[in-house]
């Protein structure tokens, strides 16, 4: 349906307050092949949650191996079969679990689950549009993601197992079928899933960009946009410009795997026999192409969280966001720098030291906009009238994690230090805190804050507090000790550390980390129960604007239909951060500027 058609469809609703036209929506068009951005957002969210549970479960399983390398758990064999012969996860299964955990968490949860949910949900609602520029392609975007999910899931069930060469899919493990069991059909399915995923994010991203640029309501100038929208805009631009580069790397990979070219492969021997008839490829080439996406991907994951955190902090501090233009400028700077730092993942590949020092400089430059953002979040909180809702707590947790993880980024960004720290547990600690857990916190903050708009009901607050405190304590207890392990030289992706004299000292620490990981996972189940229970039985929202926020989504009815506003789309007269201005608690964007009003 084009947007004009949506307008027409809505027009008919508008004339009929009792909603008799609702029966045009069948179950299939309302809940399955829906073109309503709000329903598509929920589809992304719930699919992302399914993947988060599966990916989290995988991490619990491989943490079980790392914490208890000598123990045998017969129940594991009954679940995993030949992957856990004798009750112990096999090395092949361990690598498959690590790889799939990384792939699904990075791409399916924190990219599709995060951007897919909140870009879809918030863009039309906050800019004042009835739907996306192309609701049809928006629907396609979800179904490509769904197809990618099915293909990725099916790779778990092939004879030789899913791909097991790490989420970065470096050749030769990814390019040569004989390299490992997971390099066979598991890798083919991995590539197909990722190709479908790239199509999904391109369709979604183009829609977000076109909608933001073109479909804002009257008065909604670009500098009146909430920071959430700006962040989602830069995220979409990053995705549209970086995923195609990954795709070009994948195309060359497919040719190497299936058609006998040698872009990435050279002089490979498997069991003493030459595996290739041709030669001359370069495995490093793939790393360049991969990380040219891979680094922007970090910000594709982080920026939406940053945007939502800015919004939630301002609303719950009852204060305008500190330094709107500085926030915007730092988003822009991060988006630009994201494209210029990819080789900091490759300091130990024999990169020219001069080039390395250029990448060190550019990498450390990211600290500047990041510090601006942190400063502005803290000054937004400063002397605010803070309401500690679960959403607000998760937003503050995000800032805490972003600082902790960001500081270790300054270590890793130095080429000289990176020689020691590369591929160690220090790296695992760094990126999990700054990107993985922090963005997860952003996502939780968003879910708690916008749940009333999504479902017309509240999440349970007490469960929310338990969820927050256990998760933040757990996040630090899991990842903080890993810094020490990494400094001591403990390499990542090893199956069993107990055979090394130098790492035996960490046996208890590893067991501790694994135990905390299980507790944190259990608490996420509590969140799931809260989420699904509250959809049906949660306390009902009774006012249009439960958080007393200024943005447009709170001017829609409590349960908005397709088209969002029953009458005219409201006009916008001011920026979204007029909190506590001239002694008034909040002034919605739709309120005209008074004659004697001071400018912000």
């Amino acid at each position: 349906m084009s947007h004009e058609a949506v307008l027409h469809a809505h027009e008919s609703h508008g004339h009929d307050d009792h909603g008799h036209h609702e029966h045009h929506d069948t179950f299939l068009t309302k809940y399955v092949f829906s073109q309503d951005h709000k329903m598509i957002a929920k589809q992304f969210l719930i699919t992302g949650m399914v993947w988060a549970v599966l990916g989290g479960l995988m991490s619990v399983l491989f943490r079980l191996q790392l914490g208890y390398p000598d123990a045998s758990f017969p129940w594991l064999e009954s679940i995993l079969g030949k992957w856990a012969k004798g009750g112990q996860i096999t090395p092949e299964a361990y690598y498959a679990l690590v790889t799939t955990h990384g792939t699904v968490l990075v791409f399916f949860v924190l990219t599709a689950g995060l951007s897919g949910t909140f870009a879809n949900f918030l863009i039309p609602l906050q800019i004042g549009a009835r739907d996306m520029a192309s609701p049809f392609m928006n629907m396609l975007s979800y179904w490509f993601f769904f197809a990618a999910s099915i293909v990725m899931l099916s790779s778990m069930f092939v004879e030789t197992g899913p791909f097991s060469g790490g989420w970065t899919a470096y050749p030769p493990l990814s390019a040569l079928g004989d390299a490992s069991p997971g390099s066979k059909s598991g890798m083919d399915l991995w590539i197909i899933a990722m190709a479908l995923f790239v199509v999904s994010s391109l369709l979604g991203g183009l829609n977000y960009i076109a909608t933001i640029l073109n479909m804002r309501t009257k008065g909604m100038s670009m500098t009146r946009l909430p920071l959430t929208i700006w962040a989602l805009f830069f995220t979409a631009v990053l995705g549209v410009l970086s995923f195609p580069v990954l795709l070009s790397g994948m195309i060359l990979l497919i040719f190497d795997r299936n058609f006998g070219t040698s872009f990435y492969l050279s002089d490979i021997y498997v069991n003493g026999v030459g595996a290739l008839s041709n030669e001359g490829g370069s495995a490093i080439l793939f790393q360049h192409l991969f990380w040219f996406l891979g680094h922007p991907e970090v910000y594709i994951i982080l920026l939406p969280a940053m945007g939502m955190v800015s919004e939630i902090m301002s609303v719950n501090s009852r204060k305008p966001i500190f330094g709107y233009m500085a926030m915007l400028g730092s988003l822009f700077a991060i988006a630009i720098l994201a494209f210029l730092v990819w080789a900091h993942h490759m300091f130990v590949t024999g990169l020219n030291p001069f080039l390395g020092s250029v990448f060190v400089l550019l990498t450390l430059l990211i600290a500047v906009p990041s510090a601006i953002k942190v400063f502005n979040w803290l000054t937004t909180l400063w002397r605010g009238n803070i309401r500690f809702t679960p959403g607000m707590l998760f937003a503050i947790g995000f800032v805490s994690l972003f600082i902790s993880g960001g500081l270790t980024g300054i270590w890793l960004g130095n080429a000289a230090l990176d020689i020691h720290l590369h591929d160690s547990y220090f790296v695992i600690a760094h990126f999990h805190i700054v990107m993985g857990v922090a963005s997860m916190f952003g996502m939780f903050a968003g879910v708690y804050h916008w749940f009333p708009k999504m479902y017309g009901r509240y999440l349970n607050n007490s469960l929310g507090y338990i969820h927050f405190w256990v998760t933040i304590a757990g996040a630090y207890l899991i990842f903080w000790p890993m810094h020490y392990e990494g400094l001591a030289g403990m390499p990542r992706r090893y199956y069993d550390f107990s055979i090394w004299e130098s790492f035996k000292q960490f046996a208890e620490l590893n067991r501790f980390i694994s135990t905390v990981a299980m507790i944190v996972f259990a608490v996420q189940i509590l969140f799931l129960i809260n989420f699904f229970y509250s959809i049906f039985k949660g306390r009902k929202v009774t006012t249009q604007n439960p958080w007393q926020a200024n943005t447009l989504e709170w001017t829609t009815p409590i349960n908005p239909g397709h088209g969002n506003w029953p009458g005219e789309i409201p006009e916008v007269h001011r920026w979204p951060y007029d909190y506590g201005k001239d002694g008034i608690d909040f002034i919605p964007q739709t309120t005209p500027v008074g004659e004697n009003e001071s400018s912000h």
Partner: protein
Amino acid sequence: MSTDILTEKKKIHPYQFYLWGGLGSIVMMFAGLTSAYIVKKSQANWLDFDLPNIFLVSTVVILVSSFTIQMAVKKFKEQNENQYRGFLSVTAILGVLFIILQIQGFQHLQANNIALTGARSNSAGSFLFVITLLHLLHVLGGVIALIWVSLKAFSAKNNMNNDLPVKLISNYWHFVDILWVYLFVFLHWVG
């Protein structure tokens, strides 16, 4: 409600943004491939060879087709339906001709032992094939769109007030033209 639609119409159509974003992503894909080409070329075991002359002919053909589609846009603006149809179909035919010429170029390369895959292949040849084949796929998409728009232009229901389809296809067609010129110059001078 109807005023909403009217103000919507005055702005640039969302599909136009859609297309521009899409073109940006195609640019990045080819930027990735040609950068990889430069990296790979600086390493050992690279085969130097000349491009077949037939690629020069196909370059001329696609340049001419850019001119004809621009004429189609002009005739559309002048509401000259017959000439609009004519220029549109000529462009589609030139697009098909371009595809045929490219395939002949590939055959010429293979006859000279430059192959995409197999024992005699070298990544210089593989790169040339992959890059030009991917471009050809994008041209094929454009030709299909051109044929579709042409068929619409010849149908009785042709709407000479809606300039969106011809705008979108002409933007896209100019793009694949410029992309080919870039690739041709790149492969000729760098390769």
